[in-house]
């Protein structure tokens, strides 16, 4: 029984933290926030060189072949530094979609490029209904000979504007799970238009992707026709845990900023951190964060080693950390007083990212109900 990190994992954590502290300081986040594209290409290239983009991609496809837990540890550091750019869209969503759902030819065609950072990918799933169940995939893919014609709008597609390839979910038949097809298509396919959906989270770039009678060949089907839901379902759990990891890192950094501030800010002749009201808020924050960390480790471990418990564990981790990140950043802003409320202070980047993370891939309420069902309440 060993519920701890290996030496390699500790090294990964430490080196990632050091790298990001120097290569992605808050000043870079702030600079990229102003930028329309929101894609720090130099940083992304460095991360590719470090092997981060292909961390879980099998080494036969040019990746490092590491575990999901390893990726989660890395994602925590990215969350801690609120790193902007398409890491989550590409190295998590698109990469996993292709790993889990692609034919071996498709994996061979795309995984090495995604891992090397030569191509950026993303996932287009949700529509205007914002539903995560099969009924949420309503946009139609009509068969036309051997080809397909896609019509509809996809929302909340992060980084579509810089993606080289988009994995898009369409309804090819029926109404339920059977009849969802995933397509792989280049961003510049005729009929595809992309519009920004600016979010208060300045570190992310969600897009609306419109498909107007987009024609795709049979080869564009990722995996098999009508069988896409299974890939989405497995991807969903991993994405939820990945966001939970981002949230954990962000919460920890917000706590750190608040505690550091409270130690130096003086009022009434003493550090505000010496007042119990402030101390107790900090104690509550860390008392939520540390058990959440333990739960996240289990969820990642379950994704790797306990597949029958992965969905339940993923829902627990996402529910927990959705709330913890938002709750922590709220209190961290309050500990900073008026300054925490300004644009000039960095904390609002974390505060806002917490809100994006909270709702993406199911919020706490959604996951608690899912947990109730999986645990057969």
């Amino acid at each position: 029984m060993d519920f701890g990190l290996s030496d390699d994992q500790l090294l990964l954590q430490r080196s990632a933290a050091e790298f990001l502290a120097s290569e992605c300081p808050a000043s870079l986040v702030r600079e990229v926030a102003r930028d329309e594209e929101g894609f720090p290409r130099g940083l992304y290239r460095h991360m590719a060189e470090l092997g981060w983009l292909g961390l879980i991609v099998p080494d036969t496809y040019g990746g490092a072949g590491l575990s999901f837990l390893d990726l989660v540890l890395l994602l925590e550091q990215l969350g801690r530094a609120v790193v902007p750019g398409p890491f989550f869209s590409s190295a998590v969503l698109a990469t996993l979609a292709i790993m889990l759902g692609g034919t071996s030819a498709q994996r061979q065609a795309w995984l090495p490029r995604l891992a090397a950072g030569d191509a950026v990918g993303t996932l287009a799933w949700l529509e205007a209904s914002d539903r995560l169940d099969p009924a949420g995939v309503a946009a139609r893919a009509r068969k036309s000979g051997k080809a397909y014609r896609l019509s509809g709008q996809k929302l909340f597609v992060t980084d579509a504007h810089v993606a080289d390839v988009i994995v898009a979910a369409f309804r090819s038949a029926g109404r339920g799970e059977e009849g969802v097809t995933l397509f792989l298509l280049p961003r510049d396919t005729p009929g595809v238009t992309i519009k920004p959906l600016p979010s208060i989270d300045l570190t992310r770039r969600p897009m609306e992707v419109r498909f107007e009678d987009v024609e795709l060949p049979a080869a564009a089907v990722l995996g098999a026709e009508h069988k896409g839901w299974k890939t989405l379902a497995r991807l969903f759990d991993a994405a939820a845990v990945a966001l939970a990891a981002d949230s954990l890192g962000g919460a920890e950094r917000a706590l750190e900023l608040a505690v550091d501030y409270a130690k130096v800010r003086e009022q009434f002749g003493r550090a505000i951190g010496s007042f119990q009201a402030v101390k107790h808020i900090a104690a509550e924050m860390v008392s939520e964060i540390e058990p959440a960390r333990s739960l996240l480790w289990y969820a990642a471990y379950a994704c790797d080693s306990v597949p029958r418990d992965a969905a339940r564990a993923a829902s627990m981790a996402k529910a927990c950390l959705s709330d913890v990140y938002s709750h922590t950043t709220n209190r961290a802003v309050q500990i900073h007083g008026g300054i925490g409320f300004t644009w000039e202070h960095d904390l609002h980047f974390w505060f806002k990212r917490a809100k994006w993370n909270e709702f993406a891939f199911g919020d706490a309420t959604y996951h608690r109900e899912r947990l109730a069902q999986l645990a057969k309440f």
Partner: protein
Amino acid sequence: MDLALSPEHEAFRRKVRAWLKANLPKREPDDAVRGYRDPQRVSRLKAWQRTLYEGGFVAMGWPAQYGGRGAGVMEQTIVNQELVLARAPQQIGMMGVQMVGPTLIQFGTDEQRQRYLPRILSADEIWCQGYSEPGAGSDLASLKTQAELVGDEFIVNGQKVWTSNAQIADWMFCLVRTDPTAPKHRGISYLLIDMKTPGITVRPLIQMTGDAGFNEVFFDNVRVPRRNLVGELNQGWQVANATLAHERNMLGSTTRTQQMFNGLLQLAQGHQRYGKPASADPVMRQKLAGLMIRVEAMQYHSLRQLTDALRGRPPGIAASINKLVSTELNHEIAALALEVMGNYGPLARSAARAIDRGVWPYEFMFTLGLVIGGGTSQIQKNIISERGLGMPREERGLRG
């Protein structure tokens, strides 16, 4: 990272489980209603600890020369878990085994160890803890019970409060003030006091549960031999703290929390609330799921700390968080159980229609006591923020 137990530990767990199956005493039907000082209850619990000790499952971590097995953290954890799962009776000599015993091992004289340790293990002598006083609760170091050294004896005068087990204890380990002129932490000594000494009066205190679960203890010129001092004179605070840091069996307590939650879930599935099972109500499901997440997070949290202990790493901030989170979680589980039950919730165990023999309102009350005792939640938050996060201590007694 690997959650599986080694084959040896799996085998050990099976052995413990089988032993418990064969040796657990039968549940007596009137166990729940016997008072704390009921002699039959006391002798039954002493006998149970003796059985457990003879089985090799008490004080496993003590060095073999003192009656333990020098067993590792993993074995002790497995035993603690299995005891909870088997709903074994409490160990009446727990104060001795977990507190004064390790203190004597670390700070006692050979004479003291020989005199006290064997009877701690067999539960022949029961110990109580004389720490809190009416004027010294959270601020324990301000304690006033005096012990004046006169020749070869201490003369003890004062009062202790919240003393669990005092009414049946044979001995008390007691913090007393031996130097009233020194700064408060430096004038305290750790004394072993025979509860049969003339001048000691034990008065039961009734908890809101209705049980006389703890006591006041009055000392009126109580004579204690000098050889009953543990450690150096006026070093008692350090002696007490060294063993307060002794880790509680965390995995035992998270197993108990899990057990409570499982009971709550069963209750919610079985009880009709406004015409349908409570567990079918969407709001109840949210609350139940929310608790499940916190319960399970604490399970993995304790595994993480267990791993740190196995790797020989010092307990960090994660350990300070345990008491705060676990005690409040237990209370919230009981509170939700009452919510599930509606008007059935407050029914006492004597009510004909009480659900689950009235255990839930009892637990609801009792668990609040555990939030307060052993360091209140507010004190825990001070400790977490100061020692864990390095936040500045509050200046004491600010004036103007």
